[in-house]
């Protein structure tokens, strides 16, 4: 109650008369509603058209009231539609993406935690320079790395494999994960570490007993960042894999070019949803923590 009182006192709109207040409220909600149309339209259009018969879409376009709805295009998109020469729908590419994104996320996050721990709590001569080098990796455009990667993947025998993409995303992700974790761990008081060292705890023991239990918020941020980034990545997947070995984001573009006759827009819409769902689900589940982590870093 006290809180509510305080908030009213701070309410910028509470100036002016009652009618004026009501008008401005209405305008605020009207604008919020209008903007949400702009943001929600693509999602609504996708879901609706993934369930409409094709001739209905071809006749009326994507923005139209549906004549009938059916889930069979989802089944087709998942299991039987032909993309890039294989008729297994997107299920195969979906699995490829999981096999790429999960190991790369786990490895880069684990390494980022340990690196961040060293760079914040066990600094040594030259460690700041090393941190600088690692941070530079955040900015390097992918185009600068394409040909060297092609050579390295080739000589390791990892061309056109998911393992090759895991390697690329792990190395590229290390900059982000190390940066995130280091900046988070810096805020942990050094006295805590000092006390533990006096008690005889070593490097790994302090990591396990003190650092890790404090880490869940930054682990959530890092995992969301890495997983969505890797899942959504397109360039590396397109350059270094082809055919049945592509991740789903690259396969979607191949999708547009496959099939004969009229494009199966409804199946394509269903496939597009499937490609969007995992990062969307992760964001909806963990987005609150993500935004908090993001803004804490930015406002500082």
């Amino acid at each position, binding site marked *: 109650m006290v809180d509510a009182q305080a908030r009213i006192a701070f309410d910028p709109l509470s100036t002016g008369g009652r009618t004026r207040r009501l008008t401005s409220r209405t305008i605020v909600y009207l604008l919020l509603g209008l903007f949400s149309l702009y943001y929600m339209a693509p999602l609504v259009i996708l879901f609706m058209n993934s369930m409409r018969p094709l001739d209905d879409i071809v006749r009326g376009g994507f923005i*139209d009231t549906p004549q009938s709805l059916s889930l069979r295009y989802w089944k087709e998109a998942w299991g039987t539609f032909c993309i890039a020469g294989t008729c297994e729908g997107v299920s195969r590419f979906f699995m490829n993406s999981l096999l790429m994104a999960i190991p790369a996320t786990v490895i880069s996050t684990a390494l980022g935690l340990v*690196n961040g721990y060293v760079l914040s709590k066990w600094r*040594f001569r030259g460690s700041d320079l090393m941190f600088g080098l690692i941070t530079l990796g955040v900015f390097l*455009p992918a185009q600068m790395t394409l040909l060297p990667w092609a050579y390295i993947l080739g000589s390791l025998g990892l061309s056109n494999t998911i393992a090759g993409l895991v390697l690329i995303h792990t190395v590229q992700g290390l900059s982000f994960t190390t940066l995130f974790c280091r900046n988070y761990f810096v805020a942990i008081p050094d006295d805590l570490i000092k006390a533990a060292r006096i008690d005889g705890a070593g490097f790994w023991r302090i990591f396990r007993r003190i650092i890790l239990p404090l880490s869940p918020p930054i682990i959530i941020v890092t995992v969301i960042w890495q997983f969505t980034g890797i899942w959504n990545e397109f360039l590396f997947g397109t350059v270094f894999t082809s055919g049945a070995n592509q991740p789903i984001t690259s396969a*979607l573009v191949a999708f547009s070019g496959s099939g004969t006759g009229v494009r199966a827009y409804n199946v394509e819409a269903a496939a597009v949803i499937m490609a969007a769902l995992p*990062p969307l689900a992760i964001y909806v589940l963990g987005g609150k923590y993500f935004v908090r982590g993001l803004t804490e870093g930015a406002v500082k």
Partner: protein
Amino acid sequence: MQMSTDSPRTRSLKADLLERLPLLVLAPTVLAMFLYVVVFSLWTLWLSLSTSTILPDPSYGGFGEYVALWKSKRWTVAYQNLFLFGSLYVVGSLVVGTLLAVLIDQRVRFESFWRTVYLYPLAISFIVTGTVWRWIFHPQTGVELALQDMGWLSAQFDWITDRDMALYVVVITGIWHASGFAMALILAGLRSVDGDLVKAAQIDGASLFRTYRRVILPSIWPIFMAVAVVLLQFAVKTYDLVVALTQGGPGVSTTVPAIVVYDLMFQRGQIAQGSAAAVMILVALALVLIPYSLYTSWRRRSEAATHG
């Protein structure tokens, strides 16, 4: 390791190892990042100066590929597009993001619902984003057809197939993707503004609009800078959005540098020129990042000076 025969030498080795443990733990990452950042960059730089065509070739070829690149119409259009798209995308996202943040800041109900609605595009890939917006913008499948079906027979909305307008389609789509991000950070900034400052302005009789424009927004301008730099970086690296939305067309009207790099390297077998184009992307990025990092370190130093 648990042997009781610890001679002084092995003990010192162990102690030595323990002392160096942090370095040893960091070493794999540092080596990988040295390879990635330094070796890869020099490698591509060197390829851009070589005589490589369809296969990498180490012999030195001079700056000829840079000259050829800047003479090609496609590249100059792409670089211009980068600056036009980049500035409209960043300014647009900031304007929309600020407006949304200010609206949400009015103590609205269901705040987390609105925030989720505006921010979810950030989780969606550029390929998915581009595919859906292509359907919406295309005259035969999207808005134009819908308007005509509703009875407005002369309705016309064909920006995506119009050379002069197609880039704005990319901008609108880009803003859809990024403005929620701007909103989230700006909103956090608004919440961090000193309440007394706002109250003082209101007691002085400043209107709501004036309070925001004169007091609140100016006090969080470092956040605008940070968001702008992050988005500019996205803009310089833009690739998949354009591939899914317009494939660089119609003609070359929406081509961006990253598309040219891919084509030169992997479609046309002009590795040296493709590498030169990649180096130019790095240059564009440096043009954004170096002034910003100088500015932040200057700000930090001057802050330290006033606080000290």
